[in-house]
C-alpha cells in the first residue's frame, strides 16, 4: 500500500535572516529595541522607523508544486471545502439554499477558497438506462452528474500578480501565487485581472484573499489541507512535473477504457495563457464546468494599449503644437 501522502522533505528556512550589509547593520542597530525588555517611547519609535528597511533573506527556491484534480473520481463530498475552511479559519458564507444541484456555496470568494461544482447533465428522455460514466455518443442519452473541486489555478504567469500595484501578490518559493494580505491595499485590480474569478475582496477586512496552496503547511513539509482530506484522491498535490506525468497517464488510461473525451485543462501553456500549476482532468468542454474555454491573459492586451496610448498622446501634443505655433494668428 503506497503512502498517499506526498510530504515534502526539504524544509525551507522559516526565519528570514537579514540580507546585505546595510540590512545587517540596521538589524544590529534595532535588535536590542526589538528583543530587549526595557523599552521606552524613543527606542520604540526608532525601531519602528528603521524596521521596514531591514530586508530579509529570500527563501531558497523549491521545486514547483501544484494540484492535479481528477474530476472523474470526485464524489462531491466537499471534504476539501471544509478542510480548507477549518485549516485557514475562514468563516461560513451564510446559510442560503441555492437549488443549484448540491452546490450551496456557489462560487470561489475571499472566504471560500475551495468550491465543489455540480453539473447535472441528464437527457429529457424518461429512462433509467445510463451509459457508463463519461461516455457520450449519439445513441446513448447523456445521463451524468459531473463534480469538480475548483480553486486558484496558481498560473505560472498570473494576471493577478502582474496587475498588483503594491507587490502584495508574489510568487513564493514553491512558484505558488500568494497574496500577502497585510500588504494588499484593496485596489481590486487583481479581481479584474483573473480570468477565472478566483479572487474577491473580503467585506470584513477589505483585502483580497484566495487559496494560498497552504503555504504555511508546505513550509512545514505538509500537503495542503484539501488534498489531505480528499477521500478518493481526486485532488493530487505534489511537484508539478510529476503531476503532469501522472495526469497524462490517467488520460491515456481513460482513453483506453472508452472515455475518449478526457483531457487535461491548463497543464500546458496556450497561445493566450501560461501553464497553470493547478490543472484539471475534464470530460466535457471547460465552459460546462464554468471555466473559460480559452483563457486570455489581459497582459497581452497591454503592449498594444500602451503603444496606442503613447501614440495617441504624441498625436495630441503634435496637434496642440500645430495649433499653438503654426496657426498662431
Amino acid at each position, binding site marked *: 500500500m503506497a503512502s498517499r501522502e506526498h510530504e515534502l522533505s526539504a524544509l525551507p528556512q522559516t526565519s528570514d535572516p537579514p540580507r546585505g550589509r546595510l540590512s545587517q547593520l540596521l538589524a544590529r542597530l534595532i535588535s536590542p529595541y526589538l528583543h530587549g525588555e526595557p523599552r521606552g517611547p524613543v527606542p520604540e519609535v526608532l525601531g519602528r522607523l528603521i524596521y521596514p528597511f531591514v530586508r530579509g533573506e529570500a527563501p531558497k527556491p523549491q521545486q514547483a508544486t501544484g494540484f492535479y484534480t481528477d474530476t472523474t473520481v*470526485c464524489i462531491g463530498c466537499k471534504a476539501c471545502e*471544509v478542510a480548507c475552511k477549518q485549516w485557514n*479559519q475562514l468563516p461560513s458564507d451564510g446559510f442560503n*439554499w441555492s437549488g443549484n444541484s448540491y452546490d450551496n456555496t456557489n462560487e470561489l470568494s475571499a472566504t471560500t477558497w475551495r468550491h465543489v461544482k455540480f453539473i*447535472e447533465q441528464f437527457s429529457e428522455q424518461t429512462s433509467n438506462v445510463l451509459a457508463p460514466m463519461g461516455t457520450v455518443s449519439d445513441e446513448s442519452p447523456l445521463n451524468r452528474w459531473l463534480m469538480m473541486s475548483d480553486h486558484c489555478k496558481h498560473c505560472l504567469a498570473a494576471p493577478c500578480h502582474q496587475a498588483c500595484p503594491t507587490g502584495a501578490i508574489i510568487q513564493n518559493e514553491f512558484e505558488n501565487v500568494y497574496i500577502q494580505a497585510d500588504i494588499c491595499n484593496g485596489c481590486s485590480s487583481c479581481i479584474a485581472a483573473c480570468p477565472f474569478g478566483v479572487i474577491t475582496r*473580503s467585506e470584513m477586512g*477589505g483585502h483580497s484573499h484566495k487559496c494560498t496552496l497552504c503555504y504555511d503547511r508546505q513550509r512545514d513539509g505538509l500537503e495542503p489541507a484539501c488534498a489531505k482530506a480528499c477521500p478518493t484522491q481526486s485532488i493530487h498535490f505534489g511537484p508539478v512535473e510529476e503531476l503532469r506525468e501522472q495526469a497524462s497517464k490517467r488520460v491515456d488510461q481513460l482513453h483506453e477504457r472508452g472515455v475518449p473525451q478526457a483531457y487535461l485543462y491548463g497543464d500546458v501553456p496556450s497561445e493566450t495563457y501560461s501553464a497553470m500549476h493547478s490543472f484539471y482532468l475534464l470530460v466535457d468542454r471547460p465552459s460546462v464546468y464554468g471555466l473559460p474555454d480559452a483563457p486570455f491573459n489581459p497582459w497581452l492586451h497591454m503592449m498594444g494599449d500602451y503603444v496606442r496610448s503613447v501614440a495617441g498622446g504624441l498625436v495630441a501634443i503634435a496637434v496642440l503644437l500645430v495649433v499653438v505655433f503654426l496657426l498662431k494668428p
Partner: protein
Amino acid sequence: MPGLGASFGRGAATNYQQDMANSDCILFMGSNMAEAQPVGFRWPMEGKLKGATLIHVDPRFTRMSAVCDLYVGIRSGSDIAFLGGLVNYVLTNDRWFHEYVLAYTNASTIIDEGFRDTEDLAGMFSGFDQQHDSYDSKKGHWGYEESRPGNAEQDGSKHTPEVESAKDPHVPQGYSRMGSSEPYTSPYEDIINAPRDPTLQHPRCVMQILRRHFARYTPEAVSQVCGCKPEEFIRVAELLCTNSGRERTTCIAYALGWTQHTTGVQIIRTAGILQLLLGNMGRPGGGIMALRGHSTIQGATDIATLYDSLPGYLPQPAVHDPEHEDLSWYIEYGRMPTGYWANFSKFIVSLLKAWYGDAATPDNDFGFSWVPRVDGDYSQLAYFDRMSKGGVKGYFLAGQNPGGGGPNAGLHRAGLRNLEWLVVLDWFETESAVFWKNDPNAPPPSEIGTEVFFIPAAAAQEKEGSLTQTQRLIQWHKKAIDPSGDCRSDAWFFYNLGKRLKQLYAGSTDPRDQGLLNLTWDYDFDEQPRLPDGTLSRIEGEPDLEKVLMEINGHRLNEIDPRTGEPHLVSGYSELKDDGTTACGCWVYSGVFPEPGRNRADERKLSDNPIQPEWGFAWPNNVRVLYNRASADPEGRPWSERKKLVWWDSEKRSWVGLDKPDFELTKPPDYQPPLGATGMDAIAGTHPFITKADGLGWLYSPGIKDGPLPTHYEPVESPFGNLLYPKHSTNPTVRLFPGPLNHIAHMPTAEYPVVATTFRLTEHYLSGPMSRFNSWLNELQPEMFAELSFELAAERGIVHGGWMTIHTPRGQIEARAMVTRRLRPFVVEGRVVHQIGLPFHWAFAGEVVGGNANDLTALVADPNVSMHESKAFTCQVQAGRLEGQALHPTAPTAHWPTLDPIPDTPASAQPEGRIGHGK
C-alpha cells in the same frame, strides 16, 4: 444482522473495506457508500482505477451513481424481486460455481417432507399461525430431513420458546446467537447427519427447492415489479456472473437502504444466497460488506447495547423463559453440539466471572441469577410506543436523538413528554433535549411534566476508547485534550453513576441488589493520567478504559502474571474455560489485549502484507476475511493464483496465507469427522463456515422468523399489491404498532400515491445532532429539501426552488423543491408511480432548522430485528407551504473565528483567514 448470521454464521461484514480494491465487480444496492461512507469509498474507487466494474442499483441517482459504471433505477421496496431475479438467472443459466456450492453450502441437504414452500401455498410457508401472525417453524417442518416433530418430541423437552403473538408488539423478540442459531431445527444432532444428495436431484434437496422457489423471478417479472427494464437487469446479472468464479470475485455492499425495510433481513439473505451460488464468500474481493455507521455501530452490537443479547452475542435471559431459570438450562439451550457454538458454556461462564469476579462461584451458578432478565420487548420502537402511551418513567439518552431521528419522530417526542425524567448526554441541545420548549407541534412547556437533565458530553478527541467499525476492526483512539468545562466522557458518567448506585445500595441483603453489589467496578487509574503534552489531566474520576479492554479480552484467574502481579491475560478465546478459572467480558474480542502493555487495538504498524494485520485488531482473532477457508478449493489449494488468500501447506501440515485462517490451523482438508463427534471435531476439513452447526453456508436457513427462503413482499405502505404473490401483499409476520399517533396507509391508496424514501447527505450526520450546530457544514446544506422528478413537479404545479408540502398519515412537513432528472417515475405493473427522496437531517433544534423527514415515517417493524421501514413508505405532495409559524434556529450561528489567536505568534503567522477577518 441475522441476515448474514443465518446464512454464514456471524452477523457481521465478511470482508474489510480495503479489500474492495481487490474486487473485479462491486454491486452497491441499498447503499450510497460515496455519500454515507466517503472515506471508505476510497477503496472501491481504487478498485475502479484497477479496472473493476461498479454497479449501483438504487431508486435515486446519487453522487455514488455518478461514479459507478452502471446505474439501474428500481422502485423502493422491490429489492428482493431484483435479487431473487439474479438468483434465478444464475440457476437457470447454470452460472453457479458448481464445485464451491457442492462442497461449501447446504445445497445437497434434504429438507423435511412436511415443508411447504411459497410456491405450494401461494406466498406463504408452511407452519403459519393465523392467530398470532407468525410462523411456527416446527409445525411447518422447516428443518432438515431427520428433524421430524416426532423425533423432537422424543428427544424430550428440547423445544424452543414459542414465538408469541406478533400482533402484540411488546413480547420479547430475538435473543439469538448472532442470528446463527437455528432454534427451530431441533434436535441439533440431525444437522450434521442430515441426509444429502450430492447429485442435487432429490426433489426435496435445498437446490431443487431453491430452483422452484425462485423460478417466478424472471427478468420480465423483475422488470414489472421493480420498474427497470429487463435488459438493464440482465446486464447487471451478466456482469455479476462474468466477474465471479475461480479467477474473479464480486463483492456486494449494502447499508440502511436494505435494512430499513420490513423485509430487510430477507433482502440480506437473498444476497447471501447469491454470493454463495457465485462462490464469492470467504474470498478476497468478494463477500458481503455490511456498511455500518461511522463510529462504533458494529461495536454496539458486539458489546451488546441491544436489549436481547449479552456481550459476544450470547442470548439475554428472559424472565418468563423456563430455559433461562438456571445456568445449566441456559447452557443446554444456548449451545449447539457441533460447530464453534459448542463452546457456549465457556463464553457465558467467563462473562459471569468478568462481571461478578470472586462472587461468581460454581455453587451460585457463577451469579447467573443476578443477570437482569428482560420481561418484554425493549427494542427502540416497542419501547417508545409504550412510552408514548405513558408506560415508562425515566430514560437515559447518551448521544442519541430519537426526538429528531426516530421513525415517526412525533410519536417519539410524545413519548419523551410522558416521562417523569430524562437525562440527555450530548454535545448540543438536540431535539431530544429541547422538545419541551421548541417543538412547534407540542403543547406549551407548562403542560409538559418531564424533567430534563442535560449533561454536556466530551467529544471523541477529548476522551480515550475504542471504536469498532464496519469491518469488525477495533481501533483505539487516544485523548488529545481535556474536555472543556463540565463536559465529561460517557464512560465517566456511567462509571461514576455506577459507583454512586453501589454506595446507595451498600449493605443491602435483598437478593435482587446482589447483582449490582457484586459487579466488579474498579477501573480507576492507578495514577492521574497525563495528556499528550505531558501535563496532568484536569478531570477527576475518569475510568481507565484500558482496564476495561483488558477485562473484555479476558484473564486466566488461576495464574498470576509475574510482570504485573495480576491474573494472566489470555491470548485468545481458545483459552477460555467453563470451570470459573477464566474471565472474559466479550469472547469475540478476546485477543485484543494479549499481554500486558500490548493493546492491539492501538497498533498502527504498516507492513508489506496488503491485509495489514498489525493495524488495529479485527474480531474474531484478527481474521480480516471471515470464512477464508473457502478461498481455497476442497483440497486446500487456492482457487486461483490471482485470488489466493489462505491455503493448506501439506509440508507444514497447517493452513497458511496472507490472512489469519478462520479455521482450525492443523485440521487437514481431508479430515472427516468420526461418527458422534461433537464441537469443532464434528466440522469436516472442507466446511468453512465454522460457526454453523454443520460448517456449511446456508442457502436454505430455517432460523429466521419470516421464512427459510426470501420472498418478495411489498412494503407495509405501497401503492401496489404483490405482483409475485397476489394473495399476500406484505410480509405476513410484520409487526405493527397501532395507535392514534401511528396511522398507517394500508394497502394501495389513492390518498397517498407517491412513494417516499429517506436518504443521507454527506454534509450532515443522522438527524443533525452533531452537524447542524456547525456552520461550516450548514452552509453546504442549509435547508430541508425534497427531490422529485420533473414529471411529478409538472403534475402538481411544484416549481424548482419553490416550496412543497409532504403529507403522510403521521404528519406533514414543508421542504424546498429540488426538481431533478436524477429521479424518474417508474412504470410498475403498467402504471406510472412517482417517487420522492427526503434527506432526514433537519428538525427544529440547531443552527439551521427545517422539516423533519422522520415526522413522516411510521413505526412498523421487521419480525426479526424490530427494524422500521423508512426506506419505503407512501405520501402525498403539494405545492406551497404549511400554514403556521416558520421554524427559527435554536442555536446562534457559531462565532468566528472559532479559535483564539495562537499565543506568541505574530498576526502574519496566524491561520490565513484571520488576516483581515479576525477580531
